[in-house]
């Protein structure tokens, strides 16, 4: 009859979904992100916003039923372009987030497990070097050097963004590797790579998920700034390029472009940030509800 212990044991079972179900802000944020994701999906499947390129309307038209937010300087539908940019944002965000997180997990995991050896020192040194390069200069330089390589911008982002995840994973792995269940696996004879992939990294998934969402947002923001600076290299339109276009228009008193792009971007970034916080709270094994 272990009353107190029983209670403490059942509490974690209410777990992640339990905590999320009580987090109103997190739920709303998740919903918003879902809406954006559906928009992006629809665009890539051609369901809507396919007229984003057309320049057949008169320039600077006011919002009307044909063009929900009016048109820009060369007669393109702002609303369609803004929607299309959602797809651009998602494709860049997802690809960068996925690859950077995986790369960070892999290298961070190897470094952590090899803690104290030359392999660890090498990876830490590499992370330090990459962190000390100013990001935008790096992207500009890479874009110039690899002019004909597709996805140069994404590659640059991945190369720079993986280090944050790498450091976090390394710290967590160093801690996990000192726990007895890792020692037990070693005593049985489990090879090191299997210990990493089966025992250690799965215990870092809470970290990885949160990092992935943060990286997603960072990629979107970075793209906007790069496009604004004229360094963006991608096909189609993005919020960044729309904002870049709008600098000329604002002087002439036309705000449609700017408001559409920054408004939509603001919405997604805010929602993602709130979602990342909610996930962090829900997944943190130490925070009992």
């Amino acid at each position, binding site marked *: 009859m*272990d009353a107190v212990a029983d209670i403490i*044991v059942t509490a*974690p079972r209410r777990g992640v979904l339990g905590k999320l179900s009580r987090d109103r802000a997190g739920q709303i944020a998740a919903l918003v992100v879902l809406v954006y994701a559906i928009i992006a999906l629809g665009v890539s499947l051609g369901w809507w916003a396919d007229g984003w390129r057309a320049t057949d309307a008169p320039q600077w038209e006011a919002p009307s039923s044909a063009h929900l937010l009016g048109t820009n300087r060369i007669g393109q539908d702002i609303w369609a372009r803004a929607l299309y940019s959602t797809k651009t944002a998602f494709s860049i965000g997802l690809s960068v987030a996925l690859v950077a997180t995986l790369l960070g997990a892999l290298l961070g995991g190897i470094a952590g497990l090899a803690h104290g050896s030359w392999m660890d020192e090498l990876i830490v040194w590499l992370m330090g070097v990459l962190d000390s390069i100013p990001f935008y200069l790096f992207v500009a330089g890479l874009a110039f050097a690899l002019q004909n390589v597709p996805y140069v911008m994404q590659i640059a982002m991945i190369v720079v963004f993986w280090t944050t995840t790498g450091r976090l994973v390394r710290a967590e792995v160093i801690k996990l590797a000192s*726990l*007895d*269940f890792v*020692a*037990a*696996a*070693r*005593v*049985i*004879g*489990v*090879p090191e790579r*299997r210990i990493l992939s089966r*025992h250690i990294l*799965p*215990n870092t998934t809470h970290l990885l998920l949160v990092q992935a969402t943060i990286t997603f947002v960072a990629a979107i923001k970075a793209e906007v700034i790069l496009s604004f600076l004229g360094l963006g290299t991608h096909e189609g339109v993005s919020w960044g390029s729309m904002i870049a276009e709008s600098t000329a228009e604002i002087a002439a008193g036309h705000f449609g472009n700017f408001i559409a792009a920054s408004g939509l971007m603001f919405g997604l970034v805010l929602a993602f940030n709130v979602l990342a916080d909610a996930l962090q709270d829900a997944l943190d094994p130490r925070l009992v509800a």
Partner: protein
Amino acid sequence: MSAAVTVEPVAPPLLRVANLHKHFPVHGGLLGWTTGWVNAVAGVTFRIDQGRTLGLVGESGCGKSTLGRTIVRLYEPTAGDIILEGERMTEMSRRRWRKRRRDVQMIFQDAHASLDPRFTIERTLREPLDVHGLGARAERADRVRTLLDVVALPADLLERYPHELSGGQRQRVGIARAIALEPKLIVADEPVSSLDVSVRAQVLDLLSSLQRERGIAFLFISHDLAVVQHVCHDVAVMYLGKIVEQAPVDALYAAPRHPYTQALLSAVPTIDAVSRPQRTLLRGDVPSPIAPPPGCPFHPRCPQAMPICSRVFPQEKDVGTPDAPHRVACHLYT
């Protein structure tokens, strides 16, 4: 004509440890240079025979846990030999060691920490079988079930996670995992210390029955003198990385020779006022292994210290009988 005397070949002991050392570097200073050494295990010699249990007792910092982990090769020895059935561990090829390590397994103190929280019990028990390819895939599920039977756990625990089990059940899972590879020696590092008193007896009985039925030898590491007396055939007492006394369990508890062993035994709280011994309260605290005193490491606290004790480490001497050796490292006997 006298009958020829046949000398029976003496079987090599299951485990023989000869002058084993394990040192850890201490990093300090500006650039993390090695500023000193912790001599966690400082020259330890003993043997364990088939099917016997050697108890290893001592207080914090004595090196017993490090010794246990070095024997299962979680740490590499700094010096000295670990000889398993006549084979030197450090001389084994990697392939040979991969096979041999199945013979030496470990039970950990905190079963909760030694089970992966994300593995079901089934997966935890299957892992050793998978890693070594024991039995056909299909058979392994059966073998796992058998393991649970042996440790008297119900089969419906297979799909559970460690946090859903009680402390005693988790420890049994740890034991089941340790016997999965059919080892000849198990190093048990404080196997019952974190369990409730009422559960301890059951787990200790389980270990005893495993020894009876499978002939498994145990290195039983513990700070609890009562438990050690209950389950061990022989006992070695450690202090600051060295073994100061080794003897069969009855001899050690009835007539301890080393002043440290005497103080240790007298310090154990006793339930019956009648059998309460005259307490030898030691001065000071258990020292840290980073800067051990010269000569005999116990001399600063020893109630019977002599001048020589601070200069020379005493040689081990056998004060027992040929079939019941009783080794002490103390100047009182050299």
